[in-house]
């Protein structure tokens, strides 16, 4: 075991190193900052990410144009929604667990394991609720739309009056001889015109088909289409 001579050697060496290398204790503020940052990271990750992801889910759900831009529209169905959302949920949960890992290594975190666990659970439950509500709402809405003979939907009520840049028009094809004519749920007849970049599915122009049109409303009954796709019943 250790003897006093050995003890003296270690003491001398350590003190020598402190003197020679002019070592000083790290300032207290550095520890305080790092400790605060650790906790902040955790809180921001758990609450912030849960809420942000919630907003993202709702936005994605409501704004079909996103799917159109990412190429989801052509094969759009509930599976795509659920897979897309699930990826986000899994990613978020991974990030929350990562934050939990960082925090639990922090100073005195072991004394607050319950608090950390509660916050993590709260984040996960919040996330799960948002995920569930988003998908259920979307599913219900989608099912209701599919059961209607005519489809009519704008992004929101204000957009309906103001003719915003991008809107979605649901309707049934009446005629497609010269241009595509669609009748919406309110009975309005729309003349859908195409540009050089318009994407059109093969059977979209057949009379009686229920279609969805992404594009810009130019006037009360003229619609410039970017994409026309069938609504699967």
């Amino acid at each position, binding site marked *: *075991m*250790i003897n006093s001579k050995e003890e003296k050697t270690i003491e001398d060496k350590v003190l020598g190193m*402190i003197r020679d290398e002019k*070592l000083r204790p790290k300032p*207290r503020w*550095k520890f305080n900052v790092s400790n605060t940052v650790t906790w902040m990271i955790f809180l921001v990750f758990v609450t912030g990410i849960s809420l942000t992801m919630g907003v993202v889910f709702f936005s994605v759900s409501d704004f079909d144009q996103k799917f159109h831009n990412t190429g989801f529209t052509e094969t759009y169905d509930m599976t795509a929604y659920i897979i897309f959302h699930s990826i986000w949920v899994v990613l978020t949960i991974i990030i929350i667990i990562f934050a939990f890992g960082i925090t639990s290594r922090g100073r005195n975190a072991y004394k607050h394991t319950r608090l950390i666990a509660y916050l993590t659970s709260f984040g996960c439950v919040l996330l799960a609720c948002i995920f569930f509500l988003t998908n259920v709402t979307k599913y219900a809405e989608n099912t209701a739309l599919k059961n209607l003979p005519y489809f009519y939907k704008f992004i929101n009520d204000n957009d309906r009056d103001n003719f915003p840049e991008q809107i979605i028009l649901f309707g049934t094809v009446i005629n497609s001889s010269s241009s595509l004519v669609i009748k919406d749920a309110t009975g309005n007849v729309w003349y859908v015109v195409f540009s050089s970049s318009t994407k059109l599915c093969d059977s979209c122009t057949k009379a009686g088909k229920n279609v969805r049109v992404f594009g810009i409303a130019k006037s009360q009954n003229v619609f410039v289409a970017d994409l026309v796709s069938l609504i699967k019943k």
Partner: protein
Amino acid sequence: MDIPLATPQIEPDVKKNEARDDVLLVTEALKNPDAFSHIMHKYLKPLKRYIHRLANLHEDEEEDLMQDIFIKIYKNLNDFDSNLSFSSWIYRISHNATIDHIRKMKNRPRLALNDDDEDRLLSVADELDIAKESDKLFLSKHINEIFSGMKDDHRIVLTLKYFEDRDYAEISDILKKPPGTVATLIHRAKVEFKKIVTERKLNSNEL
């Protein structure tokens, strides 16, 4: 052999005074680097003993590790939280540094018990009602193998509790685990200890 029935406990007042002394030592060392020698003088022996029990390193390796630990302690003096005991804090740093060192060396911690430690380990056997006269002999012979055969976590908590005389709160501070987890670990460690003793006894009888 006279086996102590319980681990000697330090009186709360003594602990309080010791904690106050430690805070003074830290304050002094923060002002004057030479005053750090008082901390080293007080904790060198117990820390070295603990590291020896934990890792059983070679003397030179152990000395280098001790130096690193004390430099680390000095650099992090401002991180010392006066809500903890200084002793637990210093043990925590040493524990982590030793575990890191063992990991770097890719060695499994090796156990080093001396005669005194064997007596202490027998007190664990006492608590588990396996310290009959014949068992004591068996334990004395095989104590090193039994203890080495245990899981690292279990061995570490038993070392802290029975060899370093640390209470649950202190072990919790050293290992940075909640007190409930520490209690569970100690319980499991005792169960494992009992299981290994029984198994080895059975094996030796069969032979």
